[in-house]
């Protein structure tokens, strides 16, 4: 097992706070996304420093209610809305390390979510769009100016 049971709970609590089930916009359906499997795959493919980064990110996020003096509990102890609020703040934290490591977890959430074909289809990413080129750009420069 790559992660301890505590880490696994913190990872799940973090991922679910990034992408709420049933929220407006793009939301995962129950059981649709493999959060843990994605973080584990990223971890295993990383070098030792990268792995340390994933572990530290999980630790920062899991203990965030305590070290940010938000509440006397770990992340899973906070209601979903407050978890999200806290993660949003950490993404813009003044310390580079905190921002960077929480962004790594957000990257994992994005990989997990949009890596599911059905979710990707709902995002509209692959929807055909009318071509701007035809409407606005009669001539394109084809040589270095």
């Amino acid at each position, binding site marked *: 097992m790559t992660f301890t049971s505590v880490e696994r709970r913190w990872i799940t609590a973090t991922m679910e706070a990034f992408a709420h089930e049933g929220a407006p*916009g793009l939301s995962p359906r129950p059981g649709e996304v493999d959060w843990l499997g994605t973080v584990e795959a990223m971890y295993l493919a990383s070098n030792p420093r990268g792995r340390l980064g994933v572990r530290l990110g999980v630790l920062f996020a899991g203990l965030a209610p305590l070290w940010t003096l938000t509440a006397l509990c770990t992340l899973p102890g906070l209601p979903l809305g407050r978890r999200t609020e806290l993660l949003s703040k950490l993404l813009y934290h003044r310390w580079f390390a905190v921002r960077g490591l929480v962004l790594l977890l957000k990257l994992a959430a994005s990989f997990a979510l949009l890596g599911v074909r059905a979710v990707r289809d709902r995002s509209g990413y692959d929807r055909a769009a009318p071509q701007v080129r035809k409407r606005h750009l009669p001539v394109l420069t*084809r040589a270095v100016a």
Partner: protein
Amino acid sequence: MGAYTIEDEGDFVVVGTGAGGATAARVLSAAGRSVVLLDEGPRLKTEDRPRALLGAMTSAFRDFGTTTTRGTSPFPLLQGRLVGGSTAINSGIIWRLPEDVRREWVERYGLSELADEAGLARAFDTIERELEITETSDEVLGNNAALMALAAEKLKLPGKVISRNAARCKGTAQCLQGCPGEARQSMDVSYIPRSLAAGARLHDQARVDRVLREGGRAVGVEGELVERGSEGRSRGRFKIRAKRGVIVAASAVQTPVLLRRSGLRGMVGERFQAHPGAAVVGRFKDPVGMGFGATQGYEVPLRDRFMKLESLSMPPEMLGARLPGAGPAWQERLGQLDHFAQWCVLVRMEAHGTVRPTLFGTGSDAAVSFTPTALDMRRLREGLTTLCRMMFAAGALEVYPGIAGLPPVLKDLSEVALVEGYDLKARHLNLMASHLFGSACAGKDPARSVVGEDLQAHALPGLYVMDSSVFPTNLGVNPQHSIMGVVYRAAERLAA
């Protein structure tokens, strides 16, 4: 067999199958030399390359992109680790070695043979013909690039359609995952098969750990057969003997590591350079549809300002992570993933760094130190400011500059002044670099360079370096074609 699972021999052994190694193999095998190619990464068939980004990156990117610079604001150095090297995950943008850079190499570094104008032009002509270099067609330009063209036109910036090695591009925007129709002529579908057809042999998942010497000459390499997907488990060791030369083309990060592990010192690992960059995202009222179009179709080369702006279509997983917020605020944006454009700036940085083997790591693990200078950061800020202006000029409703300490969302053009006036530091950005140079520089003086004009190591006859680590300076343009041109010339002379 003894201690080795694989033993082999050739006139030349080539370590690394990216832009440099594959080109060397192409020239030497065509000249009738026997070539043994080695790569740490696997040989992946196009149809076996995963399309979802998680699988694509775990199978083809070195350490999932977690090789970072050291220091207080580390950033990733992206590299491919598969047969084809970084060319198998790149966008296929093609630029010849700029004339001002070529002249500097001749005049300041004395490389008149290596950077000979007529010889290089001939090499570029051949490569351009063989790799089907052409400008991106209107049909597959895509809106991400077309919007950038529109912005460049409005702001009177010197933009142009990008030339690529993908004449038959269908605009799937999947270069990072490997071109599904093999339109993009990366080394794994061009010079590697061509070399194999000419008699070269390839051993993949074979990580070279040491260059072997006998009588003061490089005579071969040895290393470990590593199994990807099972945390690099060993499948045994190999030894390859080279009758005429060992060619190291493992990239500007791994080449100096291998040379140092093989006992070379001096300038090995010094003068590491790069073109780090960052991206800006804009949201548009009408759909952009980043999922269609050449991965990179339009560029604004600003060489006199040491930067280059490019349109950059990203797979949805990466684009998603780049959008601001968490929870419902993020998800609302994710629900309109066809409404975003993304463009990036790359800076020809003046900073020099170092590359060393890691203290406790094995094989090709590298410790890279690189810190942008204050001037580099000012140039980056100018590039980001220009990109934000361009986004609004193209009609963006909101722009995400991706700069810590500034609002994550700019609502109109007047707010771009915040970017322009910001005291930007590396720690405010999520930088990345994939254009890497100069850690085993070519030059005349053995005290100030690692290899000579023929790319042979001053300190070890029979050892050649043929990748971007020999470049004495960075370029300010995308490097693949310059690497291939320089290596083509050097390999031709070696084959003669």
